[in-house]
């Protein structure tokens, strides 16, 4: 396997009863790239992410991260290897403050993870790291607000910050702009882009806003009924006739 492939799946398949949600998906993701996955609702994108992060076990096939098989690794182990993921539905701890949310995320990765009975304030370095991350996602001045009191756009930024806490090399972002007002979308995408380039991270993004995807992606994978319909650069994808028929056409009708 080439060194610059950070993530690879081989014939990944997942069934839910009779339904095949992910069917023989083999994808290679280049390290440091911005890789988007598009496809209509129900195409299997979220299921695919769940297979990558370890939330779901595949019916068949394998997942490799940096050449090492991780197919059956529990979620928390995958996080420790450097895979972070966000969820399609915002996942936060609504009754904790922004600061507490991020500090918890920082502490989760500490080497002394199971010295559980230590005071949660005993670790100064986590506090500092939390401020650094809040700076990155632009939430420093809202540090003491309860997460549930944040506007939706800020909640998604907070979620991004929490995923960044373990300093993952690969980020799986499942429709991070879902539910956001359209004028806020470019800001969040720019933030993601900034995180990718400045931190030399790899991004796999599920997104339905075509303009956004075409503009920022290095590679695009199109999924349809659980299968990979096409893969290529934005230019190749927009020129691809099968894709246009099956997907783009339907969207722009």
């Amino acid at each position: 396997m080439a060194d610059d492939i950070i993530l690879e799946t081989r014939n990944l398949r997942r069934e839910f009863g009779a339904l095949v949600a992910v069917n023989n998906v083999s994808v290679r993701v280049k390290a440091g790239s911005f890789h988007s996955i598009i496809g209509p609702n129900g195409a299997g994108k979220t299921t695919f992410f769940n297979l990558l992060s370890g939330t779901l076990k595949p019916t068949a096939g394998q997942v490799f991260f940096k050449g090492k098989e991780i197919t059956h690794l529990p979620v928390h182990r995958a996080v420790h290897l450097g895979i972070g993921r966000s969820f399609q539905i915002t996942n936060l701890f609504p009754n904790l403050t922004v600061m507490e949310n991020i500090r918890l995320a920082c502490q989760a990765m500490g080497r002394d993870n199971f010295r559980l009975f230590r005071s949660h304030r005993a670790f100064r370095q986590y506090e500092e790291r939390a401020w650094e991350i809040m700076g990155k996602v632009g939430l420093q001045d809202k540090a003491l607000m309860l997460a549930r009191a944040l506007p939706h756009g800020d909640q998604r930024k907070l979620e991004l910050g929490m995923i960044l806490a373990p300093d993952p090399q690969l980020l799986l972002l499942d429709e991070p702009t879902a539910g956001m007002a359209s004028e806020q979308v470019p800001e969040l995408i720019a933030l993601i882009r900034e995180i990718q380039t400045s931190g030399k991270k790899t991004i796999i993004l599920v997104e339905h806003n075509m303009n956004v995807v075409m503009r920022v992606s290095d590679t695009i994978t199109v999924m349809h009924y659980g299968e990979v319909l096409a893969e290529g650069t934005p230019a190749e994808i927009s020129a691809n006739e099968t894709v246009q028929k099956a997907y783009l056409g339907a969207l722009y009708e």
Partner: protein
Amino acid sequence: MMAERLKKNRTRLIVLGILAVLFVSASQGMSTEDWVITVMRGLAVGAITFLVAAGFSLILGLMDVLNLAHGEMFMLGAYIGWTVYVRPDTFVDALTPLLLLAAGLMLMPVLGVWLGQRPLPGKVNQIWPWLGLAAALALLIYALRQWPLAMWNPGVFAESPATFSLAMSQGTMQLPAAAVATGLSPWLLLMLLGLGSTLLAAALVGMRLRGQTAVSAPYLSKSPLILAGGLALAGVFIFALNDGLTAWLYRLNHTALFALAIVVATAVGGLLGGLIESTLIRPLYKRPIYQIMLTLGISFITIELVRAIWGRPEFTMPKPEMFAGTGAGCGREVVSIVERLANQCATIFLFNGRIRTYNEIFIILMGLIVLVGVWLLLQRTRLGMIIRAGVQDSQMVEALGINVRRVFTLVFSLGVALAALGGVLAAPSIGLSNGMGGQFLLLALIALAIGGLTSYPGAAAGAVLVGLLQQFIIKYGQLGINLPFLAEPFKPSPPLVPASTVLFMVIILLLLPNGLFGRDE
């Protein structure tokens, strides 16, 4: 800001106000003595209820598991505590096989990984777990029947638990003859027990693995191995030191023995909770209905087990001497609380009301210690932080790189340990019966409904309210309430006591659907 908050909590404030008025007017109707006694008893019932409710609500909040066996874990704590306290010889004899069994079951995750990598050909795969299970049970039963165990006999009154309790409280307890092994050598039995437990664990794992495909590179955690080794080693040690240990325990004073009973019952509760979660509940996290049926099943099995071992009749548990003094220095003329406590009197006087040092003072004190301890754990430690976060969103906790399963096991174990602690604390006060579990689970459920299902302060407040309400109604059953338009004072009869707490819960829920302290979702 302030006005908005007031408005949001208006119903809550009104309800709290009405409760305060009710409490004050209920207090007007009785003498100070009666009032002090009633309030202290209410708080004591509240403390025990809280110990059951706190664990139940933590488990429900974090894992969405409705643990209907929680009451029976409370009961088991009482019976185990009684055994350590009244029959330490039985406890020492039984400890070795139980520790070996627990060690075997601890091996299940490790065996799961090991067996998962070695798939057998189709037919064998289907059949061996059943054969293994049969063999394991046969082996265990064979070895246990011959195991030297000195025990009571619930079928014969002279050897029943009640008789031993009586003997202990009268100070006529004799060290019963130690059991001697008949048949096989105990060391051989020891090995059979170890083998049987491991085989049992393997067969249970095999059942689960049937029909699954081989796992290529699964993740293996080492902690179960270490724990299993430690338990097995402890079992063997205790067996080797059996006679000496028994004699030593018999020579201990009752207060120290009671402290040991508390520790053992709590620890067994914790161990059992961890075992139940990791072997039985874990495969069912995505199937809530089955989960409820499972915990209900565990509760019935536990009751039957308790009946088989300790018998159906109720019996008492003597109080440790620290709380049992009645002779010199404890007469009516000694008023000073400090002096009476120093004399280890059974009762003290508070505003002329006679308060029992064990039933009221000690139990309330223990309840307070646990209340503060668990609160500190939740608010001040990393584990507590993770638990609070997990109650809100356990999926996200996992996505942050925390082993949520381990936290689940830990919290289940903590919850059951608290229930067992409640049981052993309650036993000297309310006695031991097969129904005590159900009785306190009901009280705990009512307390949680009133306080807010998954709120920790709610559990405490609800438990205290339920305890006070119950005791006030019982007291008024004796005193009678002077109601307008009635010639005779109205006396709530005993059957009205549980009905009134349920009624109270219904009223609170109608006004505040999330309970007094619950947050709305």
